[in-house]
């Protein structure tokens, strides 16, 4: 062949390929972490910019502005910058950013289910000396436990919340359905509502996405099972227990006849259960009291929106929803711990704590200020729900189970109608493997 591609160009191509290929090869080995530089000493600069990470939907704009302004007034020369993080993928993000002094935020919010892991590995500053200043005995004790390791508190209770049901009074009336008082009645009510509204495409009696595992575990807890429990030194998964299996049978029955939303698997869609509620595609959803502000005001004003708490298995029992909530902590590798502690005291001041109740709709970490939540029906139900709520295992490695999405995948499979027995055994084994590794 009369060399249509002359040699130089052929070489240039090969050379360029070499460079690109090398970059490709080396980038193939991503996932290397920052070096584990954890500065032991406290103290640090007396002024500077304090970086605060709060989660989406946790702290209201009003509360944030108050914190920023007050902090900057009390600490002339210093500033406070806050960034809003999303829950999805936060565990890996914290693992990498907290480890290095350059990338770490100074104050972080941790989901209560993730707190034990970060307390145990030395990622957080010991707050035991500060505990009395932050509220002492008035702090929500279940959150203090999740935020402690070997009797030292590393992550203080930030706020708590639990889900309750929102329902359409007009739809209930039209279908002749009463507010359910047991889980079976809930399934029956959802089924009747779904049949009564069959003309609406995709209508769910109860909107309950399979991916919303934190909602789904209310069935597990109310039946008396736990995600995992400790027997001696070993953790044992609870999905395969008779109580766990009973809860899965109830859920799958619900998804079969009373909810078309078990196959919803998008976490963003699932985090907005008020959307199908507003569009009349469901008669009920299981959400937080602060979802009220996302509900169509026309529905609320017309008196069409009602609330009820998670029902028990049988009359006389209690419904046990998942104990949602967060802890707040100072990163151990922060270089501005004194400033961070000053800001921490402001976070536990009356004003900021009451904003949780008045603006956010959460139960504040310091229960002394919980009365600010009010005494209307929604607030009373929420307070009751928080009181009866059950948490995820207080295990050192629980955050790793969440990181592996074991529970998410499991409830998605349940929502898709897969076999509860074999999948529960597999999910239990996966949880046990992670929880029991040292």
């Amino acid at each position, binding site marked *: *062949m009369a060399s*249509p*591609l002359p040699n130089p*160009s*052929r*070489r240039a*191509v*090969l*050379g360029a*390929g*070499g460079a*690109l*290929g*090398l970059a*490709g*090869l*080396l*980038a*193939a*080995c*991503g*996932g*290397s*972490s920052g070096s*584990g*530089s*954890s500065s032991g000493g406290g103290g640090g600069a007396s002024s500077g910019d304090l970086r605060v990470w709060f989660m989406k939907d946790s702290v209201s704009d009003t509360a944030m502005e108050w914190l920023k302004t007050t902090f900057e007034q009390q600490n002339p020369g210093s500033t406070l910058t806050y960034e809003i993080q999303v829950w*999805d*993928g936060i565990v*890996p993000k914290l*693992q*990498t950013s907290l480890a290095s002094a350059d990338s770490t935020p100074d104050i972080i919010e941790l989901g209560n289910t993730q707190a034990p*892991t970060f307390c145990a*590995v*030395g*990622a957080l500053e010991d707050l035991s000396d500060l505990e009395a200043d932050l509220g002492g005995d008035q702090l929500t004790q279940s959150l203090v436990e999740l935020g402690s390791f070997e009797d030292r508190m590393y992550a203080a209770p930030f706020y708590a919340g639990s889900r309750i049901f929102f329902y359409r009074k007009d739809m209930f009336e039209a279908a002749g359905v009463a507010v359910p008082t047991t889980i079976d009645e809930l399934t029956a009510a959802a089924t009747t509502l779904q049949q009564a509204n069959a003309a609406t*495409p995709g209508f769910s009696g109860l909107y309950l996405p*399979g*991916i919303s595992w934190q909602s789904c575990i209310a069935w597990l807890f109310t039946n008396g099972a736990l995600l995992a429990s400790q027997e001696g030194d070993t953790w044992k998964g609870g999905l395969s227990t008779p109580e766990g299996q009973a809860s899965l049978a109830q859920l799958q029955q619900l998804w079969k006849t009373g909810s078309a939303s078990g*196959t*919803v*698997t*998008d*976490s*963003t*869609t699932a985090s907005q259960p008020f959307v199908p509620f507003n569009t009349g595609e469901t008669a009920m959803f299981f959400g937080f009291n602060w979802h009220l502000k996302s509900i169509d005001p026309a529905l609320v004003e017309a008196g069409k929106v009602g609330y009820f708490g998670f029902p028990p298995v049988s009359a006389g029992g209690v419904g046990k929803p998942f104990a949602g909530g967060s802890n707040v902590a100072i990163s*151990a590798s922060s270089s501005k711990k004194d400033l961070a502690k000053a800001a921490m005291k402001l976070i536990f001041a009356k004003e900021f704590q009451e904003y949780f109740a008045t603006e956010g709709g959460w139960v504040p970490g310091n229960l002394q200020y919980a009365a600010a939540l009010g005494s209307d029906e929604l607030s009373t139900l929420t307070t009751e729900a928080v009181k009866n709520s059950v948490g995820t295992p207080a295990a050192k*490695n629980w955050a*790793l189970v969440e*990181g*592996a*999405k*074991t529970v*998410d*995948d499991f*409830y*998605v*499979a349940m929502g*898709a109608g897969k076999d509860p027995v074999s999948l529960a055994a597999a999910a239990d084994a996966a949880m046990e493997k*992670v929880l029991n590794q040292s």
Partner: protein
Amino acid sequence: MSLALRRRPPVRRAAVPLSSRSDRRLALLLLVPATATVLLALGYPLVRQLGMSFQRFGLEQQFGRPPEFVGLANYQAMLTDPTFWAVLGRSVGFCLLVAAITMAVGTAGALLLTACSRPVAVAVQVVMLLAWAMPVLSSLQVFQWMFDSRSGVVDHALAALGFDQMLGFNWFAQPSTFFAVAGLLVTWMSVPLVVFMVYAAVTQIDTSVLEAAALDGAGPAQTFRHVVAPSIAPVLALVTLLQIIWDLRVFTQFHVLQSNGGITEQTNVLGTFIYQVGLAGGDYGSASAAAMLLLLLTLLIAARYIALLLKEPA
């Protein structure tokens, strides 16, 4: 890089009068910044990762506790883990299939461009450049919207065409359709580069050769097989290899789409698996071992190409 120096064409050496020692020293000096950058930016993480793959390196170590040397335990655990082999098989299958489709579509597109009038060819290339230059997260968001089960245009279009059962269909809930959407997205983002490179190579072919082929009575298929393809073979080989490497270590597309699916375990490829084990699972040692295995696999795939590069005469 010293190879390149030694291979400097003799013609140039004769043309430039040189005091060879100082010239050589200057050349070496000029190479220092580039070499240092490569060593720092790529060498350090690689060495550290290699080290970590022989250590028990978990979350405690990430936050300051000294790691323990465990020899080949991480590799042994990885190689005896059926999950790893399942992920490996999935990754290799996905990357070969998607790379093949990308090459076929890209080459066909490039040949089509040569047949277009110039304004059309330019317009198509501009559009392709825009698609190629679009940040991957933006493309992902568009694909997520398109395939959304509630309001996505794809489901509605299919339903309008008469496939009623596709209304509200969840593409991300089964591995098969999940991989189809992910593959489509990866292909869509890689085709433009293939088109550009193949088009550039095809337009370099001496037109007299093509004319001669036409005079000899070769049809389009024969012309491609016997004239065009051999002429652009080096480019095709290079682009195919790069596609395979890129598709093997695909991460972002899968990581983001997994949050739509809730079937994380069944849709993990090597990139997301390493992330899951290391960053989400807090086992940096095992994840490093898996990453080294991925690197080894990539080197094996690229071995022939690297050999070719080293042997290539000046």
